[in-house]
């Protein structure tokens, strides 16, 4: 009899302690879930046709799989989202840079065997032959799919690429824009 009287409060306190711990865990789980999004974030640093193709295939593939995607274009990657090149209002260095850079995605070189652009032309022809989607179509697809595309403000400014030279509808941002997405993403890549 005495044992039963003692045991009852012990079970009660154990139950309430467990309930408190479960509630705490649920709260932490909810916080964790809130911190991760079904998203893939890609830094496009390269301006090489082959690398950029990989970036766009991953991004569009991710969206097709039900994820969201962010692409952050910086340095040579800015050439990918350029719609034209203008020389107006640029410094001498910026003009030189503009002259030596591809004028748009159409003119990107390949990372290997470029041979002054012949390699890139050859790769494009070979892709067409195998019915692989072109880079320009992939870019269009990415925009249609609502992929978040951000142009790095700092490198754009350094290289003197004006906003009017970029495709319309790009966001501009900095490191925190990228990290804001990357830190809550399931995967991040630097290409």
């Amino acid at each position, binding site marked *: 009899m005495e044992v039963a009287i003692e045991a009852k409060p012990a079970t009660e306190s154990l139950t309430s302690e467990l309930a408190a711990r479960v509630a705490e865990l649920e709260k932490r789980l909810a916080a964790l879930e809130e911190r991760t999004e079904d998203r893939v974030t890609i830094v496009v640093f390269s301006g090489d046709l082959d690398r950029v193709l990989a970036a766009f295939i991953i991004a*569009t*593939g991710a969206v097709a*799989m*039900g994820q969201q995607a962010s692409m952050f274009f910086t340095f040579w990657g800015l050439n990918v989202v350029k719609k034209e090149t203008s020389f107006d209002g640029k410094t001498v260095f910026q003009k030189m840079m503009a002259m030596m850079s591809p004028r748009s995605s159409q003119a990107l070189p390949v990372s290997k065997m470029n041979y002054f652009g012949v390699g890139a032309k050859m790769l494009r022809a070979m892709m067409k032959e195998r*019915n*692989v989607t072109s880079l320009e179509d992939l870019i269009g697809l990415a925009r249609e799919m609502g992929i978040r595309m951000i142009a790095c403000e700092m490198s754009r400014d350094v290289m003197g690429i004006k906003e009017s030279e970029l495709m319309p509808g790009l966001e501009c941002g900095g490191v925190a824009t990228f990290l804001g997405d990357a830190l809550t993403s399931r995967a991040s890549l630097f290409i």
Partner: protein
Amino acid sequence: MSTAFDKVFDARGMNCPMPLVNARKEIGKLDLGQVLKVMATDRGSVADFQGWVKVAKNVELVAQETETTDGRNVYVHYVKRTA
């Protein structure tokens, strides 16, 4: 082998990532519980569709099979919309 389906999507001749990208678009046009039959010539699509259903929460792979027509393999995927 015959698996029931509601709509056919012909992805023959398409290459990565287009079979997946377009199949996802097509599946969005189906009602819940309906099955899309995707025909592809891209060999990679077999593993791609498996990866897709592993990650996405709204699709289920009912069956996969390979048909051979004129000596060419056609990879057939049956995808069900679940959400």
